[in-house]
């Protein structure tokens, strides 16, 4: 028989759906800021493979010459991003939800299996709780990354008043570099996350909105 199963708690869903647009706005306003000193590249020695960002990207997005506006936006939404993230962290710890989320000792070897399975190789999916091993690792890592975005951001925002924090993160320029690459990490996460959500299908997506999904149970178990 078909039963209703709770997949995601109400609080988790609220944190998630607040974070998504806010983080998007943080990335957008961050790029308005980054444009005025767009120094980061991928390359070997003097050979630049990719420059963040190429002219065609600026031409297509029109994010140029908006530094002041970008800073003002960034320092507004940073509040919501930080408060939502801190509230989520406290909730996850206090509610015990972290047990479903934190990577376990076996998660790292299992995650490889999950990846192979997801890539279509004939590897069975390891048995799992709410989150599989790869999800445990990435969803925990993204929380840690968020925390470091906050720290590196503060280190760039107030390097004089928080000089100890800036020093701890390697100095002003390193903190900016770290802040940038954490953001690129979110962009990478977002791409994979969306692909996985599409692959998992409608009922999985619906469960992130309404919290529930339908599961088939054997009759004698359920009755």
């Amino acid at each position, binding site marked *: 028989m*078909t*039963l*209703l199963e709770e997949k995601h708690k109400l609080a988790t*869903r609220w944190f998630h*759906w607040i974070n998504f*647009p806010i983080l998007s*706005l943080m990335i957008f306003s961050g790029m308005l*800021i*980054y444009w*005025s*000193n767009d*120094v980061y590249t991928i390359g070997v020695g003097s050979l630049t493979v990719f420059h963040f960002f190429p002219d065609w990207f600026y031409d297509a997005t029109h994010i140029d010459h908006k*530094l*002041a*506006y970008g*800073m*003002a*936006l960034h*320092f*507004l939404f940073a509040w919501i991003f930080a408060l939502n993230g801190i509230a989520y962290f406290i909730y996850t710890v206090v509610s015990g939800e972290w047990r479903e989320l934190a990577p376990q000792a076996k998660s790292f070897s299992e995650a490889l299996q999950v990846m192979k399975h997801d890539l279509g190789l004939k590897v069975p999916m390891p048995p799992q709780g709410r989150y599989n091993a790869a999800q445990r690792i990435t969803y925990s890592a993204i929380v840690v990354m968020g925390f470091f975005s906050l720290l590196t951001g503060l280190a760039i925002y*107030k*390097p*004089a*008043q*928080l*000089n100890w924090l*800036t*020093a701890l993160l390697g100095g*002003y*320029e390193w903190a*900016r570099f770290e802040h940038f690459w954490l953001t690129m990490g979110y962009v990478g996460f977002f791409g994979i996350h969306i692909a996985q959500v599409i692959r998992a299908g409608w009922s999985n997506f*619906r469960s992130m*909105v*309404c*919290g*529930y*999904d*339908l599961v088939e149970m054997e009759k004698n178990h359920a009755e």
Partner: protein
Amino acid sequence: MPNDPHAEIARRSRRSFIVLGGGAAAGLAGLWAVNRAPADADLPPALRTVLGFNEKVVRNTLYSNDHLVKEYPASAIGKIKVNADYGLDDDIEDADWRLQVTPYGAAEASAKLTIDEVRALPRHEEIIDFKCVEGWSTVTQFAGARLSEFTAKYAPGSEKAACVAMTTPDGEYYVGLDTPSALHPQTLLAYEMNGAPLEAGHGAPLRLVIPVKYGIKNIKRIGTIAYTDTRPKDYWAERGYDWYAGL
């Protein structure tokens, strides 16, 4: 069957998607409100309010004149660029240059100082990371008089003012500073840079070096200093930037 799971999830799903849609609409309305501005505004008023709020938070919780910016060894000094020349159009000779000082409460300038009168104050030297609002920074050596010691000597009692205003001699560039930052021990009226007399492009004969602020506040070729309670106008604050611009 009282609780058909298919009907139940349809009900829950409908309700949740309505809430999500409502939230999205509220979010878009909020974004619209944040961006609402008169056509000639340099920054939407709501964002200006947030910058003011952030300034209050920082000044009440983080800021202290005991917090010094990091100082570097001479080997770390880089080559700082001339990023802007607002207010530096006219050619002036050091001998013709005067610094007009308007103390707190005075209606007009009480003193017109020569560069030698500034140099007469104790000389302080610092090698700091000069930070541009654009995101780059360059380690640079500066030497000059502490603005706090300058104030004590040439505008005594002006420490009580809430703000300090500075302009170039032609009035083309101007900054407003909060007094605590202006009296920070690393805030200098500098006449030397990287071991040489300050160059014209970097603000000769006298510029402000205030390492607890972005470069936009480090006004070159100072012509006037006034101590006031009303928040002075600020060139880049009029162009969308944070008036406080503190680091």
